């Protein structure tokens, strides 16, 4: 495994028509964060508390790894928690509250829902604990910086590749991993949005939601069976994408293009052997690392940029083994 | 004079069973009417029709004091002045005695609020009035069947009804309580009221009833005035043949070999220093008043309840009984007095219940021998004359007495060396009773050691070679059958606590 601190940010092939709302995630904005030796070392007693959006999926484990790496490097204790799944807002807020109760040196927070968090956030503010947002934005002035992937733009990127691969026509189905969370929505809407504006000849079916492989496979299969003219299926996270591949195989129909998101061994295998055309990856390890580094800087009282992009990238059979891609893939 | 109650042309059909066919019945004001019939004759069903629990088939009529009524449900029946003590206990085990007494009763609450202190006081007053000694605060689940039955009786009497039905109220009671009950019945009867009394105990019928109506196979046979006939005649109306019974056992104990020996048995709660033995082929009767501890002895020996001290020997070998499975393996069978709770599987069929204790003989390598089960089930149903359309009938759909026969069959099929029968003829009709006595005799001839616990003294005298009498958790004496009379048994059964202590000291 490589250290994210030294690995370059994934290339961000950002489409020009990205909505203004999504913060510009160019490599330049993220560059300063990882540079320089101006990150002071801790004394090993202080804790940085990360409240993420989950802990059970490999993605979050990778974020945790990155965070722990930075913690080790700069001598901070890292505590990492997250709710059971991305609908459990209350559970997350309870965890955030408990994080606050433990009086950490800084808090990193990936809000499932910003609106809901307002109360606890103001308590954090009152306790004068510096806070860093990661993964998705926290809609408030409180976070000193946001370390994030632009999911909307990433999904647009997936759509763009899908359109190219299917020759800009035909029916495309979406298996989205979650209907209500910010990430889930952005990864679906970004895809739909791009198709609508750029590929008028592609018919996008109403998205179906499935966060588990089995369900995703059944869903993809049913979609293909009900729509014999389908040419492509998009899965919005590891489970949805893996399921989409399996559903396609089981449907027995040839020539369906599957585009996915995130990584994982089965997905990587599927890309290598051509069952999946390609996928978008984020940089979870880097995200964790940057979050902790930003937190340490905040503890130190340094100024931070508004947004720290952890980036995303399209990968397929051709670039899957490129070092800067491989660093962000996990099995 | 108009009748207090008339039932005309009542029929009731269950799937596969015609329980009642065109039955008529009438009750005069101021009388106790006995209702007799074999197990499954339809007595309980008729009473359930009367009290609105079953809807009869088309054409049935119920007349109350010359007015035709249609009984809609339990509450309506109660409004009409009809109440019933069911054959099966209908108590809510997790509520207290007082709470049960006033459950679902008008005036038991004020605006939805219940006042347990008041319920307890009212219940206490009621028990005092009826001369019963029951703690209103006890949970029903902690009471013996007999005590639960007393609570049922108190509840029925407290309704101020015009017509009261008692479906085998004394099945769980001993002589003393039965006498007390008769006192209450006499108090209940006024020129405005009437009572229908169902029992399989003919002496009671003779003592308490004015007239007796008889059912057989769901049909009305006739009504007689009690004092004008001999009980024999009623019995032959019931069973359609003569039943003659002896008063004493016909067999003698041949062997000296002790099959079951119990030494120094005692429990925390009640029992102290119980010692007895039963020889091969011997029937040892246990007599005593309600709560004397006979059931507790049986349950301890069988491993159903924990004992504090005491050793149990079967055929001279000490056995380690920690649970019922150990006892059964050692060759002890126990027929419980509370069949609904401890005896039967209500939603399983007759054949499954019949072989439940003997499954080791009905499987090969874990595979169940259904053919054999059916054959044996049918064989024993026939032997014990269980009234049923087939052995596939669920136990819940049998009449009470027939359920009891199936439980007996269960232990006969298991073929134990030592059998403990706790109230074996509870709810069983006279004909069948005689059959069961015959069976017990037969079993003792085969060399089985048998303990019979019974609250009916004539029964104890009829079957036992020897009789152990209990009071307050102690055995107060043994009597040989030849020496035993109802009087000297009662004498031993009523030994006071103080005397007991005196003899023990």
């Amino acid at each position, binding site marked *: 495994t490589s250290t994210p601190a030294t690995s370059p940010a994934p290339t961000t092939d950002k489409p020009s028509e990205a909505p203004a709302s999504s913060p510009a995630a160019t490599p330049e904005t993220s560059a300063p964060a990882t540079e320089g030796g101006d990150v002071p070392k801790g004394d090993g007693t202080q804790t940085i508390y990360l409240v993420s959006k989950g802990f059970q999926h490999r993605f979050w484990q990778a974020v945790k790894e990155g965070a722990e790496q930075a913690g080790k490097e700069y001598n901070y204790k890292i505590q990492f928690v997250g709710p059971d799944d991305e609908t459990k807002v209350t559970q997350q807020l*309870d965890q955030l509250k408990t994080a606050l109760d*433990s009086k950490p040196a800084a808090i990193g927070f990936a809000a499932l829902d910003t609106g809901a968090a307002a109360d606890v956030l103001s308590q954090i503010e009152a306790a004068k604990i510096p806070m860093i947002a990661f993964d998705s934005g926290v809609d408030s002035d409180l976070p000193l910086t946001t370390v994030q992937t632009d999911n909307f733009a990433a999904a647009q990127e997936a759509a763009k590749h899908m359109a190219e691969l299917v020759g800009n026509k035909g029916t495309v189905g979406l298996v989205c991993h979650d209907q209500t969370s910010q990430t889930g929505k952005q990864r679906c809407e970004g895809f739909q949005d791009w198709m609508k504006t750029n590929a008028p000849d592609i018919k996008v079916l109403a998205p179906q939601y499935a966060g588990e492989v089995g369900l995703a496979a059944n869903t993809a299969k049913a979609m293909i069976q009900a729509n014999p003219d389908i040419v492509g299926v998009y899965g919005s996270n590891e489970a949805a994408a893996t399921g989409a591949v399996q559903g396609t195989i089981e449907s027995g129909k040839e020539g369906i293009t599957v585009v996915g998101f995130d990584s994982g061994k089965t997905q990587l295998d599927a890309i290598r052997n051509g069952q999946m055309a390609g996928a978008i990856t984020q940089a979870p390890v880097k995200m964790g690392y940057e979050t902790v580094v930003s937190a340490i800087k905040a503890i130190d009282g340094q100024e931070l940029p508004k947004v720290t992009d952890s980036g995303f990238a399209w990968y397929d059979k051709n670039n899957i083994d490129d070092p800067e891609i491989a660093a962000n893939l996990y099995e | 004079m108009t009748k207090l109650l008339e039932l005309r042309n009542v029929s009731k059909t269950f799937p596969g069973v015609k329980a009642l066919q065109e039955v008529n019945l009438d009750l005069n004001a101021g009388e106790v009417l006995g209702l007799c019939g074999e197990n499954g004759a339809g007595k309980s069903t008729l009473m359930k029709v009367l009290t609105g629990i079953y809807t009869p088939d088309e054409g049935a009529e119920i007349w109350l004091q010359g007015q035709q009524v249609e009984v809609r449900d339990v509450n309506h029946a109660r409004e009409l002045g009809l109440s019933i003590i069911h054959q099966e206990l209908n108590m809510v085990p997790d509520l207290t005695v007082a709470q049960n007494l006033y*459950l679902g009763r008008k005036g038991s609450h004020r605006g939805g609020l219940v006042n347990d202190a008041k319920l307890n006081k009212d219940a206490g007053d009621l028990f005092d009035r009826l001369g019963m000694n029951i703690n209103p605060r006890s949970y029903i689940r902690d009471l013996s069947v007999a005590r639960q039955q007393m609570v049922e009786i108190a509840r029925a009497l407290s309704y101020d009804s015009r017509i009261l039905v008692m479906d085998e109220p004394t099945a769980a009671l001993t002589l003393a309580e039965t006498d007390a009950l008769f006192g209450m019945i006499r108090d209940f009867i006024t020129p405005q009221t009437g009572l229908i009394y169902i029992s399989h105990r003919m002496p009671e019928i003779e003592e308490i009833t004015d007239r007796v109506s008889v059912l057989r196979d769901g049909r009305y046979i006739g009504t007689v005035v009690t004092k004008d006939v001999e009980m024999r005649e009623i019995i032959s109306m019931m069973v359609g043949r003569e039943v003659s019974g002896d008063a004493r056992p016909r067999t003698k104990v041949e062997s000296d070999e002790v099959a079951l020996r119990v030494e120094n048995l005692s429990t925390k709660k009640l029992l102290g220093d119980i010692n007895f033995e039963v020889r091969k082929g011997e029937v040892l009767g246990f007599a005593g008043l309600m709560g004397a501890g006979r059931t507790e002895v049986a349950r301890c020996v069988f491993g159903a309840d924990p004992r504090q001290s005491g050793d149990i020997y079967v055929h001279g070998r000490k056995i380690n009984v920690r649970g019922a499975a150990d006892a059964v393996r050692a060759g002890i069978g126990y027929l419980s007095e509370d069949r609904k709770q401890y005896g039967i599987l209500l939603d399983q069929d007759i054949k499954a219940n019949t072989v439940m204790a003997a499954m080791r003989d009905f499987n090969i390598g874990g595979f169940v021998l259904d053919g054999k089960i059916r054959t044996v089930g049918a064989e024993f149903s026939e032997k014990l004359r269980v009234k049923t359309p087939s052995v596939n009938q669920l136990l819940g759909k049998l009449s009470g007495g027939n359920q009891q026969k199936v439980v007996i069959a269960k232990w006969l099929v298991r073929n134990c060396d030592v059998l403990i029968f706790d109230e074996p003829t509870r709810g069983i009709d006279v004909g069948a009773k005689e059959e069961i006595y015959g069976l017990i005799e037969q079993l003792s001839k085969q060399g089985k050691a048998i303990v019979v616990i019974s609250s009916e003294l004539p029964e104890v005298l009829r079957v036992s070679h020897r009789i152990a009498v209990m009071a307050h958790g102690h055995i107060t004496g043994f009597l040989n059958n030849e020496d035993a009379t109802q009087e000297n048994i009662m004498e031993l059964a009523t030994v006071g606590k103080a005397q007991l202590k005196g003899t023990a000291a």
Partner: protein
Amino acid sequence: MGGFLRSSLQQVFVFAALIAIYIFFMIFAPNFAQPNIALDIIQQSAYIGVMALGATFVIATGGIDLSSGTGMTLVAVMAGIFMAGDWLNLPTGLGIPLVIAFGAFMGLLNGLNISVLGLPPFIATLAMMMVARGLSLIISGASSITIANPQYKFIASGQIIPGVANAILIFAVLAVVAWVLLNKTLLGRYALAIGSNEEATRLSGVNVKLWKTLVYVTAGIFVAFGAILYSGRFGFVQPAEGVGFELNVIAAVVIGGTSLAGGRANIVGTVVGALIMETLKKGLQMMGIAQEWQLVVTGIVVLIAVFVDILRRKRATAV
């Protein structure tokens, strides 16, 4: 209230487990030994606890309610519809009664399905669970709803007593209400009777269908209170949440000593059951135990707590 105390003391067993767990964390979890942590625990367990109070009645009848989790979310979504201002902007004085009525209505549907149609409670409430989940998503357009109305938020998160969130008071008051309902009214009496022996209860002349329905209505009302506490804490509803909460609710009841077979129920136990679960969650997190280990530890502690409870209960009756 002597009865209340007596019954509480009988429950001292599970309570002992709670105390033991609490003391353990006071010693081993940094920053745990503060009064505000205790208050947090009560506040955070309040919505599950309140729903568990209602579920105690259902379980007393021998029934089960799987719809409390998603049903709570649906009620909260309706609160959003009534009071968030995007659809309606009712004053809380009107909105709250409507929300409670809606909870009662869901309970009524469950009750009718069970007592009139004769459906098994598991099926009837499972169906309601699915329907409620679907409706939450449909009505909210699958977006979270913010109920900014400060009055609404005050109900759960305001502090009539400084330092003590109202949610805690409401939980306490509802616990007393539930205790009285269970022990001092016909509703509780009949619920227990039905759970103990439904047939005997019917033959006693109790209108079993009616009272069973009322029990589910009661549970629905408690679910509505749960929804108010849940959504009022953050002024926020996430329409996909609530799945799986029903198991937490039932677990609180069962840990508290109420038997799923019906006939016996214990309100104090239910409260303690809810607190045990939340204390474990908070304490293990503050100890810094990895989250996957928290699951394992919670499972084992629940086993032990209930086992000890059973043991001591046995010993108590044996004496």
